[in-house]
């Protein structure tokens, strides 16, 4: 596995202002330099030099984009389905609903698994966040948020807290308690603060940091204890709807997808956008890393899911069918990465063979849009949340 970000220098004196800051690795006249994010921004906004006009800059950007495509094409020697020819086809699948979790009074918008492989947290439009033991279908904790449309929720790695947020523009962390009668809202900690709705949040490797994405077009990394902003990520030109952390050994990158049809890969330490993919035809609703961390899948309103390879730096597969015309709201991989589960706005869940590009199963059962699909940490089941107020566990 090749995580190039760890090879770069990411902290030290900026080549321009000499202050010790997180550094972005960029090129000035084909020479590599390390600038802090402020100097990069100043460089972008400095006035036009002699002989430069908006049109010359536009032409330069176009030629660079063409060069990038050329470089990408040079190494494009094989298609995914050709590689897949040597792999056996999958057999028939029998996936059934094993549990139906009823209890939300309104649309279920988001859910997340606990590392103990059986508990989940789910959030809904009416502001309720519920922690369930999905195996026994018992509700263990419930929190009522002061806002509606709680679009993001996440379970902490330790299993001791949950984070959630939505129309309140904030991400709050609620430490869970063993005492069932305790009011969890009393110990709530307000961590993130955006200028528009919170679309997605995720803990990093510990309970102490949260990564959030927002409708204001930015992502941000926060320190939970102090609520301090550690790093912000600018580059999307429209709402960011989803993010996912890389499962790599070095754990330094994450991918985000937004309404500007772009999926961006970021270096968490410097805030730099290191890779960007813009092949979708409409809003990207969900992004998820391949289990090895070398690729990621996206689900979009253009009714397709796509697979992007990070090392080859291109889109390698499109999962679509003529009969599927409604957007995919959520995607997730099975443990080995062979199956891609995608929830759609036409109330169905389609299961795709990642290598061969074919659909292996279609699952019915929900009575409204499927808003979220997540595979359990040990891959034994996946959970789907829907606007029909229920969650279903499939295995």
């Amino acid at each position, binding site marked *: *596995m090749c995580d190039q970000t*760890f090879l770069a220098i990411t*902290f030290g004196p900026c080549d321009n202002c000499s202050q010790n800051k997180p550094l972005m690795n960029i*090129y000035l006249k084909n020479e*590599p330099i390390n600038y802090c994010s402020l100097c990069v921004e100043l460089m972008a906004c400095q006035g*036009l030099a002699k002989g*430069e006009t*908006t049109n010359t*800059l*536009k032409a*330069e950007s176009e030629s*660079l984009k063409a060069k*990038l495509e050329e470089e*990408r094409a040079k190494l*494009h020697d*094989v298609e*995914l389905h050709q*590689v897949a020819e*040597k792999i056996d086809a999958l057999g028939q699948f029998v996936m059934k609903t*094993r549990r139906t979790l009823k209890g939300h009074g309104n649309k279920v918008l988001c859910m997340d698994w606990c590392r103990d492989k*059986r508990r989940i947290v789910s959030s809904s439009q009416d502001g309720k966040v519920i922690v369930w*033991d999905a195996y*026994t279908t018992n509700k*263990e904790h419930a929190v009522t948020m002061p806002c509606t449309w709680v*679009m993001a929720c996440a379970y902490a790695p*330790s*299993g001791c807290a949950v984070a959630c947020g939505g129309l309140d523009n904030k991400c709050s962390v609620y430490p869970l308690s*063993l005492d069932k009668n305790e009011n969890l809202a009393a110990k709530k900690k307000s961590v993130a603060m955006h200028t528009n*709705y919170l679309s997605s949040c995720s803990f*990093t*490797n510990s309970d*102490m940091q949260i990564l959030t994405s927002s409708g204001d*077009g930015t992502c941000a990394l926060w320190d939970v204890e*102090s609520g301090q902003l550690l790093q912000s990520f600018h580059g999307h030109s*429209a*709402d960011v709807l989803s993010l996912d952390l890389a499962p790599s*050994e070095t754990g330094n990158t994450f991918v985000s997808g937004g*309404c500007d049809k772009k999926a961006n890969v970021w270096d968490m330490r410097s805030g730099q956008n290191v890779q960007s993919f813009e092949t979708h035809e409409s*809003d990207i609703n969900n992004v998820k890393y*391949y289990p090895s961390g*070398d690729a990621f899948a996206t689900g979009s309103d*253009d009714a397709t899911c796509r697979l992007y390879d990070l*090392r*080859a*730096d291109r889109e*390698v597969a499109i999962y679509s069918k*003529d009969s599927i*015309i*409604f957007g995919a709201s959520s995607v997730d991989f099975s443990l*080995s*990465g*062979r*199956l891609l589960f995608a929830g759609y706005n036409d109330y169905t869940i389609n299961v795709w063979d990642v*290598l061969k590009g074919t659909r292996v199963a279609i699952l*019915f059962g929900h009575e409204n849009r499927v808003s979220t699909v997540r595979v359990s940490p*040990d891959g*034994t*089941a996946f959970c789907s949340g829907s*606007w029909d107020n229920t969650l279903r566990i499939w*295995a």
Partner: protein
Amino acid sequence: MTIRSDRDHGQRYRPRMSCLKKLEATVVQMQDPSTGVKGTDQKLNVTIIPHVITGQDIVAWITKNMNIDSDEAQAFGTMLVAFGYIYPLQDHKKLVLRPDGSLYRFQTPYFWPVQKWKAEDTDYAIYLAKRNIRKKGVLDAYEQEEYNKLHKWMNHKWDFIVMQAKEQYHAGKARQKADRVVFDCQERAYWIVHRPPPQTHSAMDYGLDRHIDPNAEEKKTYDYYRRIIIYTQQAVMRSRVKSSVSLGALAKYITTFKNHDPFLVPCLPSNPWQTDDDSYWELNTPDVEIPTKMRVERWSFSFYELLNDPRGRADFKIFLKKEFSGENLAFWEAAEELKWGTAASMSEKAEHIFKTFLAPGAPRWINIDGRTMGLTVKGLEHPHRYVLDAAQTHIFMLMKKDTFYRYLKSPVYKEMQKKAISPAPHNFSEAQLQQNMRNRRPSIDPIITWQKEQEEKAKAEAASGPKVRDRCMLKMLYLTSYVHMTAEQLVPIICIATSK
């Protein structure tokens, strides 16, 4: 149900329009006189309604023309009904497609959802008022409630609304009975879609508006292009690999993990979600005494898999203890804690790490090259979250490329492989499955598990005291060859080491 006067069902936003346009194309095909769905005349109450189609015909047509299963065809048909392109004549409030003899009709294009005019509250008020004029008490309870709300809300326009309602009512009366009945059905169907009855939902409900309008053109000033240039330049210089290499790696990953994917190969003894027996989880807890063979096999796939599994990491620690090289992993763990820890604790942790692992004569000194050591020590003067990145990566690569492979060949690992258990697959009868379902066991709260783990960790840290002094001396000797110090420079360091 709230009344929002700006409810335009996102028609100005691309995503909604594109899927509706595709539905429209299919509906037009379905209405083709020769190749479309065959309609008949049906008698409803006293009138004869023309062009009525049955649910099963719709499903059959979709199955044939779109080349899909009948289940999927039924789901697709339900979408057509939910969006109002086809409406049911019986049980008109439930917008689903029944694949039997239930009767449906195509909606007139005037009432299709892609039309540019919004389903405004004014129109809804006129519709309800018209029905009220026709016959009092014909409105459903929820409609009556809406009517009262609208009456209050639009009191200032009420004369206009009543006037419009009366005009439409008279215009309707002038039509032929059959046409009037058909039009009433169509209009009613339209409003069921846009103002769903209680306990139902409208397919037109798309959720929240996106904050930034995707149709708005972004202003392209010179800094917009500059940013693209800065990004694209570094993207061009980025190294990439051949597709064959990276795609081959993806395929290899899948093949390696195939037997471990519960969706592809059943997990042993059985999938707890399928049989309601949680033995699989009991056998695979993070601190289990004897792990399963599958789990032990998984540790050999990559160093990352070994470290990620707490049981695997514990086994690796046992191996390292035997080799007296536990400091590498300890440093890596400490660096992880620094990276992911709270901002407040950072400088304290950094100092602790320096004293324990990096300072000359440290009790658990790690062996990294001079350059990295220099960079790290310099960075520690002003510690920040990523100050140990270079050193951590170096140590990680060292462990990954050397120690990991020695571990896999070591007696520690081989013994674990022998001891590991291979549970037999469950074979429950129907009755046993029923019983399992009744006796689903709850599990320990993760908070308790976490507290226990923290206690164990604290105990372990207290137990590992400072290392033997002789080890320090040995390390000093290494230091001479590495850092090229003279004897004079070494003397004060050795003095500090011996004093420990």
